[in-house]
């Protein structure tokens, strides 16, 4: 399926990324919003609060909780009574939610949460990287990463549709780079109410807390049952692989916009060098690719949109004929000296016939700027790998040796 995008200039407005998200949430007709302010997520919840104050979100309650822990906990209750439930957070707030994240996924509550990705303390740092959401990798949340504010806006509606599907019933994090996307003003088409009402059906879960048909939620499972509940969660994650693709295609059919399903590709068809990355860095990489293509460098981009579920097959299909794969990670698994996307990508290639060298770069930690020259330097490393093999498998980028 091809996804030709037409620029819909007459419907475009210039707004802040956070406003675009808040507007998208409103358009999805949430019933309960529960959030705690934290930089750089604040503008999202402020805009939602203003919508509430102006009576623009009907049949909705906004809970001004006392912590992120309670923000998500309140949504456990609201989602369990059948209310469409939304939150937004980042960094320390997301880390504070850790225990609740597992709980939400295990209880199969399709809550949607925007994560305005930010580095984690210590040292405390409010700027962007992906350490916060990556560290929640195993909690059972679908994780989608957006490239620009149009994508994070559109992704919000897609996430509700994916998560609330009865074959899925797993929560989703829609991830946008803090400040870089949350605070940037760009032209976009705000999520359209009329199309969204058609695209996203009302939330009607199979089982809810209801005195007319009383049920118990959150029972404990002993060793006789626990494994099977975990298996069901994994199966739902696997089901979501196709659902994420289907929903992206359906979205394209109805709205005319497409930013990829599980992944997206740019100039990969004949590429010897393929760069893999997630989030707003995608734009920079595309600019570098355009420049290098003019110099006949055969280089392409594999944008990973879904980190969980991990699109192993789609990734393999794209990189199988490349001569070198370069993975950029805005996170580090300390003690492994590597980023998560790099580790996962290598792991899916093992036990296959694909024999392509993979190198990893940990980049943009704590909001460190990523200029095009840095990407170009990485590409020249990759060219060296093509010529003479891997010398350094995974490394920090733009490390200031003089500070160490």
């Amino acid at each position, binding site marked *: 399926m091809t996804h030709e995008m037409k620029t819909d200039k007459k419907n475009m407005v210039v707004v802040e990324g956070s406003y675009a998200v808040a507007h998208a949430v409103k358009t999805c007709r949430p019933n*309960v919003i*529960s959030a705690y302010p934290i930089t750089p997520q604040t503008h999202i919840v402020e805009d939602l609060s203003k919508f509430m104050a102006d009576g623009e979100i009907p049949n909705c309650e906004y809970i001004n909780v*006392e912590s992120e822990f309670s923000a998500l906990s309140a*949504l456990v*209750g609201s989602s369990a*009574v059948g209310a469409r439930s939304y939150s937004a957070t980042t960094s320390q707030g997301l880390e504070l939610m850790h225990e609740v994240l597992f*709980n939400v996924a295990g209880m199969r509550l399709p809550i949607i949460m925007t994560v305005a990705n930010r580095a984690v303390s210590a040292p405390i740092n409010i700027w962007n990287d992906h350490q916060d959401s990556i560290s929640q990798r195993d909690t059972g949340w679908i994780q989608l990463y957006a490239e620009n504010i149009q994508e994070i806006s559109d992704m919000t509606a897609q996430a509700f549709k994916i998560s609330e599907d009865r074959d899925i019933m797993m929560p989703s994090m829609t991830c946008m780079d803090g400040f870089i996307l949350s605070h940037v003003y760009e032209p976009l088409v705000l999520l359209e109410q009329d199309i969204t009402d058609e695209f996203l059906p009302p939330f009607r879960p199979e089982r809810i*807390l209801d005195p007319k048909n009383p049920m*118990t939620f959150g029972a*404990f499972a002993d060793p006789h049952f626990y494994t099977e509940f975990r298996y069901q969660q994994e199966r739902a994650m696997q089901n979501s692989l196709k659902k994420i693709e289907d929903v992206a295609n359906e979205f394209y059919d109805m709205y005319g916009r497409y930013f990829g399903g599980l992944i997206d590709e740019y100039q990969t068809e004949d590429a010897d060098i393929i760069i893999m990355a997630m989030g707003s860095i995608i734009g920079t990489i595309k600019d570098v690719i355009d420049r290098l293509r003019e110099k006949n460098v055969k280089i392409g981009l594999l944008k990973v949109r879904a980190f969980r579920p991990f699109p192993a097959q789609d990734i393999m299909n794209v990189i199988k004929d490349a001569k070198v794969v370069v993975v950029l990670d805005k996170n580090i698994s300390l003690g492994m000296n590597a980023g998560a996307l790099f580790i996962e990508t290598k792991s899916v290639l093992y036990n296959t016939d694909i024999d392509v060298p993979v190198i990893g770069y940990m980049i943009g930690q704590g909001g460190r700027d990523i200029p095009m020259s840095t990407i170009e330097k990485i590409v020249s490393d990759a060219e060296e790998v093509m010529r003479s093999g891997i010398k350094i498998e995974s490394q920090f980028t733009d490390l200031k040796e003089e500070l160490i």
Partner: protein
Amino acid sequence: MKSISLLAPGHRGCAGCCDAMAAKFTLMGAGEDCIVVSPTGCLEVMTTPYPETSWDIPWIHSLFENASAVASGIEAGLKALGKQGTKVIAMGGDGATMDIGLQALSGAFERGHNITYVCIDNEAYMNTGVQRSAATPYGASTTTSPAGKVSFGNPRPKKNMPAIILAHGSPYVATTSLAYPKDMIAKVKKATEIEGPTYIHCHAPCTTGWGFDTSKTVEVARMAVQTGLWPLFEVEDGKMTKVRKIGNNKKPVEEYLKMQRRFKHLFTMEGGAEEIAKIQALADKNIEEFGL
């Protein structure tokens, strides 16, 4: 004939379980049109081993420290969906209420959700094996505040939880006891009918954790009230509107303490009498303060 209880038999509570009684009385006061949230603890574990549940009403458990937040979300969700009349109740132990869940509880009460919180206070972490909590009384031996050669057990008095809730401006705060089921049922009914966040603190002796015969749950609870160690009162809109008088039935704390293994050391250790006197002073203070 229909059972008066909305807590089904077959639960795994100990014989003489205080939690089962408190839950049963709470549901008798609330009626069928309610949703109950319980934090992690004995009540949760003993009533809901998958695929069985003892709850005949809709019930949810999420985590240990978030029952009040979950209740907030249920209340908000029902409101948003236009579902009226269903009572939202959070019901958990003293540890979940007064220690780990205090922040969420404070948040929910400050925000003014229309919920009722019932604290089943058995004065220690029973589910994990009788460890000390903020509700453990002065002088009680628990597994993390054991009496020993240089210790008389827990060195601190109980946290005054009703006062903390009152400071939130709750329209209805009451204490009750398993020894007075009709009192508890009436108070729960009243609490759930009052708009806003209301609070019931139920004193609930635990046969296993406190060390007394399974038949004595009610008797021990009654003795706590009759000594003045556990005053029963109601506070409506900040004003004390009702206090249960002890009158001529007043008992010395010694009679209460000697019924329980957790205070046994006070009767065997040198200096125990002074410790008992300190506990008597706590009771006397209550008697004076509440006019028992």
